[in-house]
Structures are given as structure tokens and as C-alpha cells.
């Protein structure tokens, strides 16, 4: 009795099925994987964008803070260590700064939620160096309150906390900014 070829044929058919199944599985995996990759890339792109928004909002706010510094004439407000203006010699400064407490930072006026950020950027300014002595002020000696010469440069450090479309993207930028002619506590 000869062997019926049916069994191999059945086997063959089974292999096809299995192979098909495997291929299907592979395709599925491939599809799922590629979908996952796309999702990931999309998510990454989203995060990148968010971070860019945060970065740019922080940059814009730096400009705003610097423009604010250009208008100031007296530094006494920085001695109070409140409302985002700090004395750079204040040792507990960074223990005090609380980005969740609106009384301890300044909010950007020009960048708001209508510009696509979830929260308006926040910033603080530290008064880190009193007006420098000028050659004239070192030469012409003065008493208390003397006004013979002045106009040196005072330095401030601005720290901006910008956020993107969600509050999860946070960018901190920091500049040191020089302002001339502010009236500091230094008479020399």
C-alpha cells in the first residue's frame, strides 16, 4: 500500500497556514511597531515643540526683564527680597524662591497663555553688584551723599522660568545684565 500523499499535503497546507500566520504576526508586529515609532516620533516632536515654546517664551521674557531693568533708577526695591526682586547678597535667596508662590516672582507681561504657553513665564531678578566706581569717582573724593561723580554700572542676574504648551516643559534661562546710572547704595 502506497503512502497517501495527503499527509504531506496536509502538512504542507499546515505550513502555509503557519507561515501565513507567522507572516501575519510579523506584519502585525511590524505594523504595531511602526505605529509605535510614529507615535513616539510624534510625541517626541510634540515635546520638542513644547520645549521650543518654553525656550522662546523664556527668551522673550529675558528681553522683557532687561527692558524693565533699563527703566529703573533706584535699587531699593531689590532690598526687600519680595515680588521677584532680590538682593544678591541675600543668602537664603534660593531657599526663598518659590515658583508656585505668586508673591515671589514676577510674571511676564508680554507672553501670556494666548501665545500658546500654559503659564506665563516667571522671572526673578537679583541685584548682584552695586554700581562700579568710575575713574572720576575714585579721583574726586566725596562725603556721604556726594554727587560729584557716579554713573557706574550695576549688575543684575535675571532668571527666567519659561513653560511650553504644558507645564511639563520647563526651560530656565539666566543672564547677567549691566545697567548704568542706577542709584545704588554705594556712594563711591
Amino acid at each position, binding site marked *: 500500500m502506497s503512502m497517501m500523499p495527503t499527509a504531506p499535503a496536509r502538512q504542507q497546507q499546515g505550513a502555509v497556514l503557519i507561515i501565513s500566520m507567522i507572516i501575519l504576526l510579523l506584519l502585525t508586529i511590524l505594523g504595531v511597531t511602526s505605529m509605535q515609532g510614529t507615535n513616539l516620533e510624534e510625541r517626541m516632536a510634540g515635546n520638542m515643540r513644547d520645549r521650543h515654546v518654553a525656550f522662546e517664551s523664556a527668551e522673550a521674557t529675558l528681553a522683557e526683564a532687561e527692558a524693565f531693568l533699563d527703566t529703573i533708577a*533706584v535699587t*531699593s526695591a531689590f532690598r*526687600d527680597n519680595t515680588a521677584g526682586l532680590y538682593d544678591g547678597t541675600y543668602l537664603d535667596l534660593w531657599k526663598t524662591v518659590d515658583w508656585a508662590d505668586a508673591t515671589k516672582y514676577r510674571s511676564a507681561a508680554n507672553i501670556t497663555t494666548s501665545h500658546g504657553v500654559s503659564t506665563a513665564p516667571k522671572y526673578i531678578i537679583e541685584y548682584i553688584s552695586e554700581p562700579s566706581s568710575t575713574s572720576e569717582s575714585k579721583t574726586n*573724593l566725596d562725603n556721604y551723599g556726594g554727587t560729584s561723580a557716579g554713573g557706574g554700572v550695576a*549688575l543684575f542676574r535675571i532668571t527666567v522660568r519659561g513653560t511650553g504648551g504644558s507645564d511639563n516643559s520647563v526651560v530656565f534661562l539666566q543672564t547677567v545684565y*549691566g545697567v548704568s*546710572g542706577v542709584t545704588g547704595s*554705594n556712594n563711591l
Partner: protein
Amino acid sequence: MSFLHMQRPHKLFSGTTAALLVISSTQLAAGNLDIANNALEISTGVEPNIMLLADDSGSMDLGLVTTEARGELHLPEGSSSTSNAYKYTHPAPGATGDYPAPNRGSFGRDNVVPTQEFLAAEGIAAPQGGVWRAWNHNYNKIYYNPDVEYTPWEGQDVNGAKYTDVNVNNAPYNPYRPSDGGLDLTASISYDTDCKLTDCLNDDDLDGTITVTGFYPARYYTWTDTDADSVVDADDAHTLIEIRSSNFPKNRAGTRTDCGGNGDAASTTSCSYANEIQNFANWFSYFRKRDLTAKSAFSKVIEPTTSARIGFATINNNATNRIKAESMNVSINSGNKLALIDEIFSTIPNGSTPLRQNLRDVGRYFECVTGNIFGLSAESPAEDPEDPSTANNCPIFKAPAGSCQQNYTVLMTDGDWNGSSPSVNNTDGGTSNSDFDGGSFADTSSDTLADVAMHYYERDLHSGTGSLDNNVPTTARDRNLYRGSTDPFESMHQHMATYTIGFGVNGTLTANPTDANTAFSWPDPTDGAAEKIDDLRHAAWNGRGQFLSASDPGTLTSSLEDIFSEITAGTGAASSVAFNTQNLESGALVFRAFFDTNTNTGSLIAQDVSITGQISSSVRWNAAEELDSKTSASSDSREIITYDDLATTPAGIPFQWSDLNATQQGQLNTPVAGSTPPDPLGEERLEYLRGQSEKEAGKKPATNENFRDRPLVGGKLGDIVHSTPVFVGEPPFSNRDQAPFPITTADLYSAFEDSYRNRREMVYIGANDGMLHGFDANDGEEVFAYVPNIGFDQLSKLTDPNYNHRYFVDLSPAVNDVYANLGGGAKWNTVLVGGRGAGGPGFFALDITDPTELDTEAEAADKVLWEFTQADDSNLGTPITEPSIVMTNISSGGQRRWAAIFGNGYNSASTDGNAELFIVFLDGGVDGDWTDTGDYIKISTGNGKAQSADTTTPNSLGGVRSIDTDQDGSVDVVYAGDLQGNVYRFDLSATTTSSWNMQTLFTAKYGSDSGPVQPITNRPIVVKHPTEAGYLVIVGTGSYFTTDDISDTSIQSIYGLWDDFSAASDSISTNKVVSHDRLVEQSFTNQATTISGFTVRTLTNNTISQWGHTGGTVKKEGWVINLDVPPAGGTGVEFPGERAVRNFILRGGLLFVNTVIPKSSSACTVGPGGFELGFNPINGGSGSDIVFDLNNDGNFNESDNVSGADGDANIVTGIRFDESTPTDSSFIGNRKVTQTSDKSIRSVGTNTGNDNAVGRNSWRELDL
């Protein structure tokens, strides 16, 4: 300084005559400068004449001001008939005769409104004619308003008793005459009156006289606007409140400070029964009637007024109640002011309202013609403002003062005019003088009140014989309503300005015309009462005054105050502003000091400065007013100390009678120094100087010693003229931790700074009440005051009722942190060195390291370090600039000695009169004398009397500039100039004083080396030479402190002089380094066009291409700017005598200085007071960068230039002060801030923000 090069003899050279001319006990030595005893910055001014023309018509007796006819209350409602009118809210006895009957008899006895409660009890149905409204302040505007605090009149009654809170059980009907009796406001009374309601007339019981019973006089009604029509209707809801203890306390507006309110109307305060009945009683006596309310307003406005000549007359021209215009003294209880207010208080309301002819008669009084309101004969102006005995019938001063004297009439009335015609025709119709009438002034009616006002406005009242020049300065109203072509319309003829106040009356008009030219439809005054009130408005329009409608006591007083403050202004400032550059409790402050020439008082105020440098208009504190809370009539809680120089160890002592030494007591016992035998009043004088007021002439009862009156409010602080406030907070210096400063850890400056970082923040200032004051910078409380022993003999003059102003502590305090042994071992101290300034020679030093130690007189006494007087060195004269406190190169005990450096001062007593530099070591006088070797060093210039133009004038070194050439913190060189124009370099770089020496650098003369000498008083400033060794020394010439200086027109200059420091070089060895022909001349050009309202000048920008002392004159040694600037487009000198006498400031590569243009002593001159200049200090030229931000847009561009064009020649380098004199400037940020003599502040942005480190220095992103 004309004496230096003048031809005519100096008026004060003539020995004995001089003493007669000068109102000063110190006779000037021959040749001495006549140092002014008053601020040159503000001319004393000519006091304006103000005639008050007050209504004394019978209607002023009314106790009602309503919207009904004549302000009365009528029954039945709506009637306007006089027979249906009520006039009073409260009965008063004696209504059968005329005055002094408290209610006017001729009105009949039945004029008190019957009460609603009485009528209701008699069966008269509601609303009983709305009689309740008589006792409601919403309807009867002068009735008691429980939200208002009623205060007594100012002044005294006919018996000389001061007005006080009245007795509630016997509240006088007429406070001026208590003998007229009073009413017990706490008991019910009954009174007779009429009921004029139809219902009453129909009721036999109520027809004719009725007796209202159960009337509790302390009462008022509250009103509820039931129908919400904002009208107090008879049937609106209302509640009677009787002021009885059972009904109180009640809440009142916060303006009731008598119940502890905070002055804010929006808040409430709880008033007790005692508060309320007292307030009601004060209303009853002082405000119950129109007449009383008007008297209250007059007394409150006149009480503080001093800078005016005020007269009074009534519209019925009652001969017993009128007084000519006289100058006002301080106190309302004495002198002319008492005489004036007595006339006002004794006025009796009785008569009609003949406004027109009496306004005319006041005009005639100012015109000095017959028929005037005082019935005086015609005379020409003859009165000398300085000599009251020359007064005649004419209220106008003789020329020159009279030529700019202003005349005002303030007319107050409660009704429409009647009486006969003034016969002036229709003067405003446009035909008389179309520069002033026609246009909106014209109407078609003749002989109106407005015509009278115009008649005395548009004509020159003093032309023809005995005429006066037409120099009367125009007011803003004069200029705005001017129809002529003179431009600018700055002065005009003698005239009368008319202000009118309608009290409780309204016309048909509600607004003035909009401008002078557009025709306006004025109602015909003969049409009716309201149209006659419109005529009051028209009269004020024609008379360039103000029409004010006052319906209640508050607005009547404020209306009068508005008018008076518009007319009178007499305070000024010659002290510059000071900023606290450190943190106060909440931000930065600017401190400003003022003086009032009329009362010889001053003030120091603090205003907030915003973070952007804007100065708040509100005053944080006023030290003069804070001082009031420390003083009372017979006691004070001030801490005042002085110095006992006669003690074995001279030391500070309390300024108390028992602590003074015998000499000091004797000086206070001498009324006017040296001239009168002593009296025993020294202790009283001391109490007066401490601020106690009971011995002032105006204080009642008559326990006084006739001492000079001081204003009740803010009168205890003397005038502050030249002293500039100095803020002392946290030790402010840096770079003091390295040698030659102390370098041991405990002695480091930074350790000192740490210890005193939070010390009490203070402001120090000298005042001409004889004291240096220390005020708390946060609240203005006086922490302590120091009375220098130098000048102690002059203090008694302050109590003299005929006191003529003089200076006491006028020098700006100099403060620095010094390391020295001042008694408690060597340590860092904060030391203040002050002086008397123009008051005389001498300096004093205080240790102000820790102000909390100055809290009691006993402790503060230890803080006086020393005094340095003319007795210690006869070369000492009168200083006008503060010392420079510096570390020297001299060592003692391993540490450098600190010194106060100053020029010797003017009118020194030495025989040679040499100009000398004083270097006074701060530790030198701590032992009580100045006799030890090295206590102080003098360096003589060798130029004295012999070298002066007249060989008798003592020379003096002016302000000194200490220079640190090696930038180690110690003084190496001092520059200063003298009266003879010499500029000196004092070399203090050697470590032994014997090697210190002096070189003459330059002699300032106008134009050439042989020109007129230019005196130097201002402090020089130096800037490093840009290319060569040494410095450019910048000096300004001119002086501004003697009486001659205000009329001196010699040309002054600003110099930039190269001192190359090579003492051995060829030209310095000739002792005259700089010659005029080696100076590059720069010149200003005054511009015709203004920029953003500023009158400006430009400057040349000639370059200095080569520097050198020898060779061709192409080599230059500096620059000069002569202040002989011609008028725009013209020739000659526009402002001769302009001088750069204010502080030089170097900032951002620019040099700033303010100049002063002297104003002649004739008080009539108005004109520019100076310029603020800003230019390049290297060549004295304009430079190439724009200096000032004239249009205040924050940018420095061509729109800030002349013609809006680019180019050096268009850069604005000078801005004029159009009316007032500038003081020293300060910088707040990049804004240059200048206080001027009219108390205003000019702030201008400057282009001083150029520096490499400006802008963004670094950037980084923080990784999280």
C-alpha cells in the same frame, strides 16, 4: 564781586555810615564782604494788596441756606413771598431790638421755623410743610452735618480770650461777644413764632403767635430720599435725632477727627455723646448763621496768611467795620492781623446789598482817588515797603515796588445786588480797551457789577502824575484772557483783579465762557435775582478772578483758601534735593528742604521715588509738622544738646537751662546781642528755642513775653536755606578693606558696615533756628538737635518780635566714615562736621555712628567731638561750602589720620587776610583744645588783603576738592580757588605735613591775562587728562552770597585747566602753569526757538589738537567758556553776571553744572534764573553725543536737537530755568534732578548711560 574791579567806592567802605545802613549789630570791618543775611535765590517780593469786601446785609443773619427764594424756608411750600418766609432754626432772645440782639430784630420775632412735632400735636397733617427740613443739612446747607467736624474760629473774642470749644450748657449766640448770652443745648425750651401754613391760619389756636414747646435744641433730622429724585421733598422719610446721651454712640465719617477718625471720609468712626454735643455746640456758636459761617471762613483763611497786605470793608461800607490793607504778621492774636480780624468779627449784618458802588469804591481805593471806600483824600503812592512809617492814603507802594504790586478784591455776598448805579457805563462792551474787553466780556447792559470790575481792570490805575511803570506780572488768568497782541504778555498796568463768591445763591449760568474772544450771552442783571448772581460770575470773568459758588461752610472756606493760595505765594527753596540711596522700609525717598521768608520757618519733606525714578507728588512726612507733636505751649519732648566750651573738659551738654554755663545763660538773657541790658528771660528764651510757644506775642492769655510769633502748624522748624539734607543709613563706602585702610579683621570697614547695616536711618540738616537737626528718615521724627556753641550769642535774636532774618546753621553737613580715636580708642566712626555757613565762622563735629545712642540728651552729650572757632584761629572766616572729610597720608599710631579740609572762609579776622587751606585732623580737637602741634595744619597761599584790589579785603579760599591721585583712598592733592581768581594745587601727597606745599595754577581773569579778576568760590572738579599726564581741573568763577552779588554783572567763566603735575616743568616752575592765550575758547549760542518748551543753548566744539605748555600757541593748556552769551540772533550779553556757582558733576563722560543768573534787588524783575549745562569736560565743547533728552521720549536723537537736525552745532548743551533759580543737581538714575527756588523740581534725562558693561554680559541655559 564788583568791588574787586570797580571804580566807585564800596558803599560799605564808608565807616560809620555803614553801621547805620546795615540792619545788623555787627559792624563790617573795612573791606569786608557784606555777606547777605537772606537767600539771594528768592527776592522777597512785593506783597499784593487784597481787599475783602464782605456782605453785611441783613440776610447774612439768616440761619438758613436753602434752594428757595433768598435761601429762606417758606410756608406754604413754594411761596416766595417775604411774608411767608422763615429765617432761623433756633430762637434767640432779645428779638425786639436790633443788634446786639442775637436774632435780627427787624426781621420780626416770628421767624423761627415751628417744629413738625409741635404742629403734628396740634393736629396739622403731614407733611406739615416739610418744616423738618430746616434742621436737615441736605436741605438747609448750613445746618449741622453730623459727618463734619466743627472747629472754633481762629483768633480771640472782644475780651481777648481765644476761641475754644464752647460750653455746651451755655453756648454763646455770638462767640465774639459772649456777653450777649448763650443757650443751654442740653435742655428743652419753648419759643414763640408764627405758623404760616394755610391749615394754621384756618385754625384759631394756631393763627397768630404760637408757642412751640418741647424744643430740644441739639437736634437734626436724617433724610431718606424716598422717591429717589435727589430732592429733599417735604414728604420724604426723615427721622429726628436729638443729641442726648441715650442716642449715642453713633458712627460718623472718618473726617470727624474729634472722635478719633482718620480723616478719610470713606471710613467711619464712633462718636460718643460727649463728642457729638460738643461738635453741635461748636456748630451752634460758630456756624449757626450765614454771618457766623462767613466769619469762620475768613478767620481760617487769614490765620495762616502772611505774604499779603489785607484790608476789609463791607458792602454797606459800615464805617465802624473797615480797615485799610496792611501787611500781615504771623499771629492772629496780635498786630495788623488782630486789627483786621477784629473788624471782621465785629461786623453786624444789617442793611441792603449795594455791591456795585462799593466795588467801585474799592477800585477807587486802589486808584488812590477820592470817593474811595475809606473816604480818604487822593494821594500818590509813597509807601516804602521797608519803612511802614511812610504809608499814606494810597495802598500802593512807591516805585519801584509799586510798579509790580498786584491788587485783588475778594467780594463775598449771599444775595443779588441793589443800590444805586456805579456810573461806569458799559465798560466791557468792547469800546474802552479792546485788549481787555469786548469778546466774551461784552454784554449789552450798563453799570453792572461786571462793568465795575472791568472798569478797574482794563485801565491803568496809576498813569499820569505820580505814575508807576507797568510791571505788574501777569497771572495765568491775565494771559489766558488777554485779547491784545503783546507776546509774551508778561507784565501789565496797575489794576484791580476781582474774585467773587456767591454764598448759598445760584445764577442761571453754570459755566464761564470758553475763551476770551468768542461772544457770550450774558443775561441782563436787571431781569431778576438769578441774573444778578450771573453778574457776579461776569464780574469775576471781567476782573480775571474766579467765581465760586459756596453753599455750605466747608466749600466757603475752601473757596476762600483757593483764592488766597492763588494770590499769595511766598516760599522758596535754595537747598538742593537729596536722595536716600539706600533701602528704607519701603523704597527710596527724596528729601527736600524749603524756607518761608514771611514766617522765617522751614520744612523738610520726604517724597517717595518710584523704581523708575518718578517722584511721587504726595508727601511721606513733613519734619516741621512732626516736630509739632513734640512741642506744646509749655513743654517739649525734644532731645536738644549743645556744647560747653568752658568746662575743664569741654563736652556736650543738654540744652537745658540748668546745664548751660554762665556765659551761655548770660547770652540768652540778652535780648538782642550786645545792645540791650540783660533781662531775666534767658530760661524763657531757651524754652522758646526748644519749641514751646506760650511766650509768643500772639499767645493768650497774656502770659507771654512778647517773643516772636511762629505759625501754629509747622512753625517750630526754622527756615532751611542753603543746607542740603544728608541721608545717613548703612555705611555706604566700598574699597575700604585694603591698606592704607585698617586691615586687621576686627578693624575692617566691612566689619563696621556689618555692625551698622541696620542702624537707624537718619537725615541731617542745618536750619536757621540755631540747630543742626537729625530726623528719622522713615517718619520724620526729630531724633536729636544740636545747638552749636559758636554763634550762641545770636540765639536770643530768634525770640525778638522784630527779628530780621539771619543765618545760624546754614552749612550743609559733611558726613563720612572715619577710622580714628575719637575718645573710645581707634575704630570706625561716622562723623558729621557742620558749620554756620553764612552765619559766621566756625565748625563743629558730632559722632553720629549710632543714632540710637542719641535718643536722650544725657547720652547725646557725649557725642559732641569738638568745635573749631575763630578764637582757635583768627584766619577762620565765614564758610559757604561744606568741608571735605578725607583720609590723609599722615600716619599716627600705625593708622592714617583723617581730616576735615576746608578753605579759611570769608571776612577772616587775621591781619594779613590770607587765603589759607585748613586741614583739621578729626582727632585733633577731641582733647578740648587745638593748641597741640599737629592738631591742624594751615597752608597759606600768601595772597591776602595786600593783594586785593582795594588792599583791605580779606582773601578767602573757596570750596575745596580733594583728589586721590593714586586711588588708594587717601587725599593726595587739593584744588581750590580764591576771591582773587587764583586756582591753587595743594600737594598733600607727602607723609609728613612739613612737606606739604602749594602751587598757583592759574589766575582767572575775563578775556586775557590782564582782564578783570574773576573770584572763585565754587568747588573745582577734576577729570583725568585723556592723553597726557595729570588732570584737567575745571573751575567756575563768580560768587553768590554777598548782597552785592545780586546786582553784579561782571562776566564769569568756566575753565578747564591742564595740571600736568610736573612741578619741575618749565611753566609750573614759573608758578603759573596756564595762561589765557593757551586756552581754547568755546562759546554758547542762545537759541530763539524752543524745544519741547525749553529755551536752550548750543555750544561750539572746537578741538584741542595739541597739548603743551611751550612752543606755538597752537599747543593748548585747556579751555574756557565765557558766560557772555549774546541774545538769540543779537549782540551784547543777554544775561550779564551769569555764573557757574553750583556743584560740578561728572557723569558718563559729561560735565554738568548749573549756572545762576543774578536777579536785581528790585523785586519787580522777573526772568530766567539760570541754565543747566552739560558738555564735554575734555575740550569744554559740545562733544558729539546728544546730552539731554529734551522731549522725554527715552531716546537721544536728533529730535532733541535744535531744528531737529544732526550735527554737533545742534546739540543742546544748556537748558534755561525760565523763572526760578536752580540749586545743586542730583542724579536719580540717569535723570538729572534739580530743585529750583520756586520749590519745583525739574528732572531731565541725560545721556550718561554709556559704558562697556551696560547690557547683557552673559547668557546661559540652566540644565535641569
